[in-house]
């Protein structure tokens, strides 16, 4: 036991009154960071699977990375997702001046750019499918599609979350709870952009120059 009874014989404090001292926003945000750790491990597993299946044996006589990567179009996607994060972040800056309209504008901007991102992605997939590079063609293509699609799925859930926040900001204004959710969403959105950058480098750039 490390406690000392003070010299004057008085007991140390036994009970604590008043506010418990743990800040609700930072507690809930910690929880969200932990969720993102688990999410980053999902992507880690998918990157590992892609790395394993990015071998000539897994092309099964079908197209390899050099044949299916379109780095320029993917760069367009990169620009879209990064500007989407920028738009959203500018929106959260408006929270500092309690500018509800600014926040809404930022969210809408982010959503539009995210839709552009997803549109470019669907288009890319459609082109690949037209050339016979389907999900079922080989192990390599399966890994490619599922990795990109998992990221796309996260973007779609982010879009849904943004739509809900539009409604909630509109109805309830910038209360403590709403601010906390907007900050967590920003965290999520930045994370998705970071994952995309990793995808771009590890999948598209590496694949183009393989």
């Amino acid at each position, binding site marked *: 036991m490390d406690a000392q009874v003070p010299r004057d014989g008085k007991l140390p404090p036994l009970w604590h009154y008043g506010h418990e001292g*743990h800040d609700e926003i930072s507690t809930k945000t910690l929880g969200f960071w932990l969720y993102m750790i688990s999410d980053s491990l999902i992507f880690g597993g998918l990157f590992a699977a892609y790395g394993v*299946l990015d071998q000539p044996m897994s092309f099964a006589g079908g197209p390899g990375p050099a044949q299916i990567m379109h780095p320029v179009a993917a760069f367009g996607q990169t620009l879209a997702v990064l500007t989407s994060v920028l738009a959203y972040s500018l929106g959260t800056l408006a929270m500092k001046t309690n500018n509800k309209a600014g926040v809404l504008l930022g969210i809408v901007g982010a959503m539009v750019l995210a839709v552009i991102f997803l549109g470019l992605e669907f288009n890319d997939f459609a082109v690949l499918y037209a050339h016979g590079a389907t999900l079922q063609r080989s192990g390599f293509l399966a890994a490619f599609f599922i990795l990109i699609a998992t990221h796309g799925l996260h973007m779609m859930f982010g879009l849904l979350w943004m739509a809900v926040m539009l409604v909630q900001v509109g109805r309830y204004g910038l209360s403590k709870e709403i601010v906390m959710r907007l900050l967590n969403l920003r965290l999520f959105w930045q994370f998705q952009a970071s994952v995309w950058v990793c995808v771009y480098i590890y999948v598209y750039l590496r694949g183009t120059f393989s």
Partner: protein
Amino acid sequence: MLVDLQGPWSPLFGRLTLASIPYSNPIIIFAFVFTALAGLAVVVPVLYYRKVGYIFREWLTSVDHKKIGVMYIILGLVMMFRGFVDGMMIRTQQVMADGPHSPGVMEAQHGYLPPSHFDQIYSSHGTLMILFAVTPILTGLGNIIVPLQIGARDMAFPTMNAISLWLTAVGAMLIMASLFIGDFSDAGWVGLTPLTELPYSPSVGVDYWMWAIQISSIGTTLNAINIITTIVGMRAPGMRWDRLPIFTWTTLSTNIIGLTAFPILGVALALLGADRYLGTHFYTAGLGGNLMLYTDLFWIWGHPEVYFLVLPSFGILSEVIATFSEKPLFGYITMVAATFAIAGISWAVWLHHFFTMGAGPWVNTFFSVATMLVGIPTGVKVFNWMFTMYRGRITYTTPMLWSVAALILLLVGGLTGVMLANPAIDYTVHNSVFVIAHFHCMVLLIAFTIFAAVIYWYPKVFGYKLDERNGTWFFATFTAGTAITFTAMFGLGFMGETRRLDYLYDPSWQPLLIVEELGIFVYVLSCYFFCRMFYVSIRDRNLNRCGADPWGTSRTLEWMTHSPVPFYNFAVTPHVNARDELAFRRSVGADETPPDHYEAIHMPKNTMIPVLIGVLAFGFGFGMVWRIWWMAGLSLLGIIALVIFRSFVHDHGYLLSGEDIARMEGKASQMSIMSETQDEMAMAEGVH
């Protein structure tokens, strides 16, 4: 459909047809009757005593971490019983089916179980015991005890806590459903590819296994987020990191493992799901798949998973041994360091599960050395427990008996584990029953500590102790069964018997198989004592009501609340001054000092959302298993809608006034976790 399904499929019912129900299998019929009777034994009294509303209000919609923990433990114990029955059936089949002239009854060539049925039984034995018995019980214990040990009122996310519980329960319900509608996976709890691919497992069994695990893994990951946030952010004032109780430390490191490892399992199974549902080639042998990818991903989760199970057990051992030796835990700081060393190294050892896959001598040597390194912090823990007992004053209550027996098992399991860590030895015993005996030593030590923990903390939650006499008989029979069965199994491993055999070709194994079966009979006897222990304790509960510190020598914060713990935990948050706070207060004579006044506290409200999410999750799982796309899709949309709906609800709690608390503290001895919360509050006001 993107894949080649054997059998019919319709848009309305998916693959489900009347033929999916095995009404011609007498064993299943018997299981159904038994389960139905057990279910009725619960449902009929609830209806008769008009307790449906009570169950709904107080338990199903509860967000109280203690009630959620109790429900986790009940789920785990029930599934442990079913897993035990599976184990009994395995042993009986093997003892009957030894040798080419062994008899066969019913539809079996040898023994009483045809191969496919036997394979499903050991697959469900493994899956249930690891993921639906031991995991929920340990999660439940953490749920109940950790907030109390750190002086918090509840977990950081009470509603999410309930959702985790119901998702785990849904996984267990899917496995129960597989018993009566369709079949279960026959590819083992590991589910190696390409055996689990559609051509080699064409029925819905693997799909049941896959979705049960996926859904409950989400619950486990959410629970990890919850507990870590609680430990980091909600400790009572003065609870510094070097004062954290050891069980909380082990729970923290366990859940860091859970948070980071379970997503990998999710990926491994999701890619298998893609193969089975979308026709991809992740793990097939042909068209560019790589079956080793599954093995690697699975075991990268699989090895941290076993530490996920064993670290809380080590925490329990630390708490129980310290309490019943009347000494502080020896080497607290190195215990914490060893815990995190084990958790960290556990990420670097996964290949030892498949040394025989041909990775080559250099790779095998690396993983072998890493595996042996894990033995060092584990050994440190054993020594620290020994030195905690040294010059202590040991009282052999049943928790202490279980703990010392667990130590012995750990030594045997550790010895055989280090033997297996050498690839040269592993090349002779991989997939033999020697390995099975090794890991059963480890999981049984976990079971021993679970029993120790349940008996140790039971009085804190329910307000009366469990019967020591029947508890001791339970301990003696269970331990004897363990010793008999698994010593024989080590022997059979050296005789060359491999695992997962429903027919054994070598009659010379018969004597040891019979010994194993005797061990099972002793286990069955232990079930009787287990039930009797609970029956006698509950029958005599009002004669054995206990105070805050029923064992008399407890050391940590949770023993400072009343027994049973009121639904608000501490009336006033304690200020922590020492490691082993209660022992410190006892040493300065302050262990009975109450707070001088009470202030209002904010309590979370019960909610239906978690139970509804659970029901929809079952719909999703069942729909996906049978490829009933409309059921799966609507359930998933429903879950998303519920979450969004919940985010619009503002007021999640209510205020408990200082006066109410003061009155309830006065009547603490008459309260119970089983009573209605509003009855307790009314009683406190003198209105009854």
